[in-house]
Structure formats: structure tokens, C-alpha cells
């Protein structure tokens, strides 16, 4: 009984840590964007977490874990299970932990909205994403859906959380189009630098710590202290990602770019999320290094493709989420896959191409579903709501003022009438 209670305690601590990651996202997004949007960006993360929580309670959890079919769960709506058998996790503890992942995915998706979407677009999409997009992918992989049957490995959510969020962000970015001033007529792009690198750095540290709950508590227990191993791999992945990205940025541009290095740390974390429970520490380092390298290439790619991604959500969570998921297809050990009754070993451990195939299939199916459904939802919203984007004037004045009526930094921004007077 004591161990069971400790299991529950560990998972609820993990829940708190993952919730605190939203604080990391607040700092990350605010720091990576301009001052005139800071209050809006920070505040929307809180109220969309509120919306996401209510939707998850009403239908999200049921769609993921309810009794249903290969595609979706269909019971346990308006969750309120007070029972506890004394064995395993209390249903409420499990519910709370799962809810946090849904909120993180939603927050990632909103990275694609930054600095130009209407407040009302956030409200409506928070409801629809939390009901129709995230739960379906989560059901497929974690809720006993068709990909779970194939033995797809995603320890803490490279695909379910990060890729799903990023695909929704991609759909939003494509529909919303680039921010004013991002691209010049000749196709060259301008750097709309974030207003506070200190926020961004603190954000990464906060997320890093939160990630110990995200990955570590995904062991769902303490009995064999496996969480320590998972956290070790997580640490190595993040560390390697930061170092690799800094080196690549310096080698390619001659500048040891701080935002790129920070994205490298996050890339390492995203990459190791799927594989942290399946691979050896040396592989965690390699997975982090590759994550740190490809995030830099991906950022460049999206910039050249004129896809404006202010928070780099597409690269950090999307491109690297794909890499992280596929990485277990190479590096999963026999002991940590077959030994744990979760899929097959990877290519480098004698598993052949089987697990790699399952991982690729999982990424493709989940990514395509999340993108298409998000795209349709956003297109319909666009039509019904008369556009998702604020007016040009509102975007220039800043969303703090246009959407909320007051600036996040009232002392530091000249009032528009003062500017006109000059």
C-alpha cells in the first residue's frame, strides 16, 4: 500500500511540474515576441488552459480513455470517478496527469497564432482542439487505439503532445499568414526579434525542470525507481541539444545566437520525450545532438518557405517531435522494449525495420490527422467568424491594446496619440 501511495504522490508531483511548464511557455512566448503583445500572450495561456481543462473534463478524457473503438473512446464523459481500489493510480490522479498533457499540446498549438490572431479565435480553437484533435491522436497511441495495437513507442508524448500541437500550429500559421513586416517584397525576411532573451532563457530552464515531471512521472510509479533513469536520459538529451544548436548556429552564421541555442535545449527535450524510457544514455546524447542540429535547419527552412513561426513551435515541437518519435525505431533496446512489453527493439539493437516502420506510420498518421482536422476547423472558423486575424491597425498597435485594452508594459510603450503628435 505504501508503494502505491508513493506512486500516486509521484504522479501528482509530476502533474504539478507539467502544469508549471505553462509558466515556461508564458515566458517563452512573451520573450520571443514583441513588447506590445506581451500581456496578451501571457494572459491567453492562462485562460486557454482554463478552457482546455473544462473541455478535457467534459469530453477530452472520455474520447481518449473511454470504452470505444480503434478511432476514439466514447465513455467517461464529465469525469468524476471518486473510487480508488488501493491498487495502481487513483483515477483522479491519473486524470489530472493526463489533463496536463492536453494543456501543453494546446499551448504549443497556439504558438502558431502568435502576434496576429484574434482573442475570439483562441477561445473557439481551444474548445475544438481540446475536443476533436488532441484526444483522437492520444486515443490512437495511449488510449488503446489502433496505433497502440501496433506497439508504437511514445514514452511521454513526442508525437501525442508535441507533434499534434505543432501540426495545429502549422495549420494556423498557413491560414493566418506572416506577421506584418516579416517578409519584404523581394522575398527576404526580417528578424522580428523577441523583446526579452532573459525571459526566453528562464522559460527554457522552467520547461526543462517541468520536463522531469513530463517524462519522469510518465513511469506512473516509483517501485523500481525507473523514473531516475528516464530523468537521466532527459537531462542528457536537453544538454546535448543546447550544445549542438549553439555550435551549429556559430558554424553557419558566425554568431553564437542565444535564441537558437535555447531552441536547441528545447529540441533536445522534445526529441528525448518519446525515447527517454527506451534508450541507453549514449543514445540519449545522440538523439539530443541530432535534435539540436535539425532544429536549426528546420528554422531556416520555414523562414525560407515564408512560413512565419514566431515561437519556432513548428521546428521545436514539429520537426523535432518527428525525429524524437522515429529515434526509438533506431535506438530502443531489447530490455526496455520487449522487456517492458512495449513494442520491439530498434534497428541498431537487432529489431530490424519493424519498430522503425511502426514509428514512421505513427508519425505520419498522427501528423496528417492533426494537420487536416486543425486546418478544416480553422478554415470553418475563418469563414464563420469573419476572419481569424486582427486588422492591420490592431496588429500594429499591438494585441495588448486591441484585444485587452491595456499594455503589458504600460510605462514603456508610447501612447499612439503621442506618437502621432511627434
Amino acid at each position: 500500500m505504501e508503494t502505491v501511495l508513493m506512486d500516486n504522490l509521484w504522479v501528482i508531483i509530476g502533474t504539478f511540474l507539467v502544469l508549471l511548464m505553462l509558466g515556461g511557455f508564458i515566458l517563452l512566448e512573451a520573450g520571443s515576441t514583441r513588447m506590445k503583445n506581451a500581456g496578451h500572450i501571457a494572459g491567453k495561456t492562462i485562460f486557454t488552459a482554463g478552457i482546455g481543462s473544462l473541455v478535457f473534463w467534459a469530453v477530452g478524457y472520455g474520447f481518449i480513455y473511454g470504452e470505444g473503438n480503434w478511432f476514439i473512446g466514447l465513455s467517461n464523459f464529465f469525469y468524476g470517478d471518486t473510487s480508488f481500489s488501493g491498487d495502481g493510480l487513483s483515477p483522479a490522479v491519473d486524470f489530472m496527469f493526463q489533463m496536463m498533457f492536453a494543456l501543453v499540446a494546446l499551448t504549443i498549438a497556439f504558438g502558431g497564432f502568435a502576434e496576429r490572431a484574434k482573442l475570439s479565435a483562441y477561445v473557439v480553437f481551444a474548445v475544438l482542439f481540446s475536443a476533436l484533435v488532441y484526444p483522437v491522436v492520444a486515443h490512437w497511441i495511449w488510449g488503446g487505439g489502433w496505433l497502440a495495437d501496433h506497439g508504437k513507442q511514445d514514452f511521454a508524448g513526442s508525437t501525442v503532445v508535441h507533434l499534434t500541437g505543432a501540426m495545429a500550429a502549422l495549420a494556423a500559421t498557413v491560414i493566418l499568414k506572416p506577421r506584418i513586416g516579416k517578409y519584404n517584397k523581394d522575398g527576404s525576411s526580417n528578424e522580428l526579434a523577441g523583446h526579452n532573451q532573459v525571459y526566453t532563457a528562464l522559460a527554457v530552464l522552467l520547461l526543462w525542470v517541468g520536463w522531469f515531471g513530463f517524462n519522469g512521472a510518465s513511469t506512473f510509479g516509483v517501485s523500481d525507481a525507473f523514473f531516475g533513469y528516464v530523468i537521466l536520459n532527459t537531462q542528457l538529451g536537453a544538454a546535448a541539444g543546447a550544445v549542438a544548436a549553439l555550435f551549429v548556429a556559430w558554424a553557419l552564421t558566425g554568431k553564437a545566437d542565444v535564441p537558437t541555442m535555447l531552441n536547441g535545449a528545447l529540441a533536445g527535450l522534445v526529441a528525448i520525450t518519446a525515447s527517454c524510457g527506451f534508450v541507453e544514455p549514449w543514445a540519449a546524447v545522440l538523439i539530443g545532438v541530432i535534435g539540436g542540429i535539425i532544429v536549426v535547419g528546420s528554422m531556416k527552412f520555414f523562414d525560407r518557405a515564408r512560413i512565419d513561426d514566431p515561437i519556432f513551435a513548428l521546428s521545436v515541437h514539429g520537426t523535432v517531435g518527428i525525429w524524437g518519435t522515429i529515434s526509438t525505431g533506431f535506438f530502443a533496446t531489447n530490455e526496455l522494449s520487449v522487456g517492458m512489453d512495449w513494442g520491439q527493439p530498434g534497428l541498431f539493437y537487432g529489431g530490424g525495420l519493424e519498430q522503425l516502420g511502426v514509428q514512421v506510420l505513427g508519425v505520419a498518421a498522427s501528423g496528417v490527422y492533426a494537420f487536416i482536422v486543425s486546418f478544416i476547423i480553422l478554415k470553418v472558423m475563418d469563414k464563420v467568424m469573419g476572419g481569424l486575424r486582427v486588422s492591420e491597425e490592431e496588429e500594429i498597435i499591438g494585441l495588448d491594446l486591441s484585444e485587452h485594452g491595456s499594455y503589458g508594459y504600460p510605462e514603456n510603450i508610447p501612447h499612439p496619440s503621442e506618437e502621432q503628435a511627434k
Partner: protein
Amino acid sequence: MGYQEIKQYREQHIHKQVNHRQLNALHDEVMEQTVQLAMEKVEEEQGKVPAPFAFFLMGSAGRSEQSIWSDQDHGIIYDGNQGEKEYFLLLGEEIVSGLEIVGYERCEGKVMASESMWTNSVADWKKQVTTWLEEANWQSLRHFLTFFDSRVLIGNQHFLAEIKQVIFSYIKDHPGVVSRLIDNVGFIRKGIGVFGQLLPEPSGQMMGQINIKTTTLFPYINSLRLLAITNEATKAPTLDRFTTLKRKYPYLEQYQSLFQSLLEFKFRFAQQANNYQEVHYIPLKQLTKSDKQELKQYMKKGSALFSQTKKSLKNECSKW
């Protein structure tokens, strides 16, 4: 002839110049005509010039290293008293407006004869340069270094020479300031990456283009300016400085011909520039493989020149 006519003359001839030297001779001709016209206008309105004076150029114009587009960097030295300053500031304003009409952008940093800092009597100029060197902070040394690349376009040559003498004796008495001057220009923007690739601008209007001014020209210009300051060489053009200084510093010999061809290299690519900002950039796409090799060579040698100059100056000054 009015400013518009001078502008037309400039436009008709600017693209016909076949090399760097001819181009700068044309700039001098155009600017001289403009300043003469400005002087006539001010004389009509304010009366005769109250004191002898010199109108001098600084920056790339001072060094005779202008491209087809250039901004304004200039000042006035007059041999008179404070009461006459107003006249020369008015003259400065007329010159600035005239040059702007003719095709020279106003200087963003306000290094122009219309500004009180850059129009002074001989006595005040001497005080000014000494104060700059005494303060020896980042900003004052920037002003000093800007001033030092100066050359008289119209008026009495001696005034500027006198002020430069004040500088030379200050430096002789205070060699410690040389290391501050070296630090002030010590940052060289990287033009070549770790894989030996050229590093163009990563974003903005100039994305994909190399800033040849900051990555390539600056180490040469800064090195020779530092040597000129410490060796009492008054001429401003970098090529003239090479000629004067190579007797004492034989290592400069190889860099002189390199710098000469660098100016022609820049001249070749700056022909297509549409404005002042563009003259400092070369699109990577326009460079052939051998152009790229050539440019990298200029960059590497520039860095080597700066390191060698820094070393030899620190060594010399420690012995003073």
C-alpha cells in the same frame, strides 16, 4: 548654375567613371561646385565670409574612398572668434541642403558642418580634439577617429594641419591612449564561417548579401589610420597612408597592392547599387567561384594586417 544642374551633371557622369580613382575625382569636383554655390548663396544673404576658413571632408570622402553613392561627413575650421560661428553654421546648413539635393544623403550620425560640434574656430578645434583624447571614452574616441580621416576640400590647408599637429604631440605625450584607440576599432565582424564559407546577412532587406565595408574594408582602413596617428602621417586616403608608412613598416608592402585591388573589386560590384545602403553590400549570388575566393583572401589578409599592426603598435608604444 544651380544645385539641380550640378545634380544632373553628377547623374550624367557618375556611371561613366571607369575606376575607383576617377570616381572619387568626380565626387570631389561635384562637391566642390556645390560648396562654392552654397558659399555664394550665403554671401548674398548674410554678407561676406567673416573669417578665413577651411571646409573639410571626413569618412570615406575624406579618404577618397567613396562609392557611387555616399553620405555627407564634413566640417568647417575658421580662423576667428565665437561670434563668427553663427555665420559658418548657416553656411554649413546651406552646404548640407545643397549636397542633399545633388545626391549625398545627410549623415545619420550628424557629422556635418551644420552641427556645432563639427564647425569650430581653429582654437576651439584644438581644444575639442584634446578633450576627445583626454576623455578617451568610447564615444569621444569614435569622434576623434572620424575627425582624423580628414582632408580639406576648399579653403586654407594649414588650419587642419595645425590641428593634426596638436593630435600628434598629445599622442607622443600620452602613448597609453593608443591602446584605447586600438580597442575602439578592434571588433572585426566575421565574414568567413568555420567551414570557410562566406557569411551573408541572415535576414532583412540585405539578406543573402555580404557587407563588404564592415567585414573586409574596415580592418585595412583602421590599421592604416592607427599607424598614421602614431607616425604623424597627415594624409587621409588609405592608399596614401600605405605609401607614406611602408618605408617604416615593410610588411605593409604586400597589403597595399591587395587593398588597391580590393577597392577595384568593390568598385566593380557597387556599380549596380541603387542607394547609399546598397553600396556596402555584394549579393552572394553575383559572385563567381573565383570572386568568392578573392573576397575571402581580402578578409583573411585584412584580419592578419590588423593583428600585425596591433602587435607592432603595442610594442612601439610601450617603448615610448
